């Protein structure tokens, strides 16, 4: 029995170790290829580590490819989307969770069923519309469609529903107004889901590709992923340069995630287990 247990244990460790190596390998290769000299990543057998590391590809990205600008665009868009959507979604989520009003169930059902509609359906008319409003190739072009998310409203509603009504009643008896309750009672209590949603939204916005590609018609407005795909079109032969670009695109989200992973992972659980 004892023998069998330890046998199982080592088997498990071996498997997990292998799985971890396989999961990390693409990242490790990306990092090392990005500092290989030109042509270094196209050799047989492939090298895992560069013989003579070089920063030239990063330097090229910074000097010639305007990467700082793309980085700033990504930051501005992601931060704006996160903040505005958090505000709008939490207000709506609160209304759905704690108010009764005519049409509530119908509206909520409508929203829920709308979650089945793939976003791509809206893209063509949306583009024409934003264009009429003069918002194509501005940050608003990305921010506006990202301002709300039905999923976000849904998650916040689920969470706020678990806040006891008695707390709200008590506040109301104390003379607090609706908005005051929302701002000073509900938002602090809903902090876990808000932090989570903020992270989700930020990363989603950072990683988003298709819509920014469509709506940012000007080179100077590209976000990092669009710029990277753009680079891929022109420099597909330069494996090492592309890897350096991938590193720069991935690094910021990775840092944000590592700093806040507790909230992120806890949030996924909140979102699904409350189902």
């Amino acid at each position, binding site marked *: 029995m004892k023998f069998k247990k330890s046998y*199982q244990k080592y088997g*498990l*460790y071996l498997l997990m170790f292998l799985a*971890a190596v396989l999961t*990390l390998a*693409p*990242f490790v*290769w*990306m990092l090392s*290829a990005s500092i290989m000299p030109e042509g270094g*990543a*196209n050799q*047989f057998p*492939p090298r895992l580590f560069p013989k003579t590391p070089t920063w030239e590809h990063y330097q090229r990205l910074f000097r010639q490819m305007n990467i700082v600008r793309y980085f700033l665009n990504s930051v501005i868009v992601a931060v704006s989307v996160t903040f505005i959507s958090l505000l*709008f*979604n939490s207000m*709506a989520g609160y209304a759905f969770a704690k*108010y*009764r*009003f005519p049409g*509530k169930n119908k509206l909520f059902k409508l929203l829920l069923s709308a979650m*089945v509609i*793939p976003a*791509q*359906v*809206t893209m*063509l*008319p*949306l583009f024409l*519309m934003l264009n009429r409003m003069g918002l194509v190739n501005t940050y608003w072009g990305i921010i*506006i*469609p990202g*301002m*709300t998310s039905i999923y976000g409203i849904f998650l916040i509603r689920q969470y706020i529903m678990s806040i006891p*009504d008695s707390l709200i009643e008590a506040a109301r008896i104390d003379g607090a107004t*609706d908005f005051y309750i*929302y701002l000073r009672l509900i938002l602090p209590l809903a902090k876990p889901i808000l932090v989570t949603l903020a992270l989700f939204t930020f*990363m989603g916005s950072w*990683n988003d*590709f*298709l819509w920014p590609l*469509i709506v940012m018609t000007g080179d100077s407005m590209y976000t*990092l*992923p*669009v710029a990277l*795909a753009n680079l891929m079109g022109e420099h597909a032969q330069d*494996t090492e340069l*592309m*890897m350096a670009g991938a590193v720069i*695109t*991935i690094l910021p*989200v*990775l840092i944000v*995630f590592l700093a806040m*992973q507790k909230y992120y992972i806890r949030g*996924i*659980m909140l979102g*699904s*287990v409350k*189902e």
Partner: protein
Amino acid sequence: MKFKWQNYNAAYLFLSPAMTAIFIFFFLPVLAALVMSFTDFDIYSLGDISRARFVGFSNYIDLFKNPLFWKALGNTGYFVLVGVPLSILISMLAAMALNSKMLRFKPFFRLTFFLPVVTTLVAVAVIWRYIYQARFGLLNYLLSFVGINPVDWLGNPRWAMLALIIMAVWKGFGYNMIIFVAGLQNIPETLYEAARLDGANGWQEFRNVTLPMLAQTTGFITITTLIGYCQFFAEPYVMTDGGPLNSTLSIVLMMYKEGFKFWRMGYSAAIAFILFGIILIITLIQLRIQKHHEI
């Protein structure tokens, strides 16, 4: 809570920003797209609307006659039918391993498996494009150690879709894994103890305790994963552009190409609504099954 006008009023005020945005920037475009799908709105019509005609259902009829559409449908089906079970299976196995009492360094493993989830898909696709490269790619090199001859992963129509599936599973399994871990932690230890008292072995424990207790979680995961996989787009867009031989052309990629590359907007809108219909049907079936199980 009492029904008072000011209560409604506050609720509507809270709702108004989000609802305005959703109605103007989501529902309105959906309707516009629906109307569009019954027209031959295309590049000619962009400059001169009189060059568009109402064509009834002919976009839909054309699509059903178009072998490329069936190809895209088949590809998407392949991606979903292989990718979703594989992804769920791996997520579940990883979750069970992470939940095992034998395992230490759990935060490390959890973090490792989760890293691909948070990284940018475009960047990941770029990396994997080189990993799959036939002559110098890392994957073929690794496979050569177990005696497998080089495979032209992205250039061969037989393997290209599988290559995309492997990448998609790698990219996404960590997410469902976390949800499964949460589900597993919610299973009361007493159930396992009771099972062990009844003399159940590991497999029986899994069959009779873990699996039924995870049914709801699995249902949730299946729905979200299915819907997500039905809409796969960025992987083929960045890695293969739908090729070779259209073997990785997905419905959304076809829709995107018709719509944004060739600006056959009516046609493209029709594809979008067929996709919508498929997702709707899947969701309804899944909900029906789930309800059935709950009763």
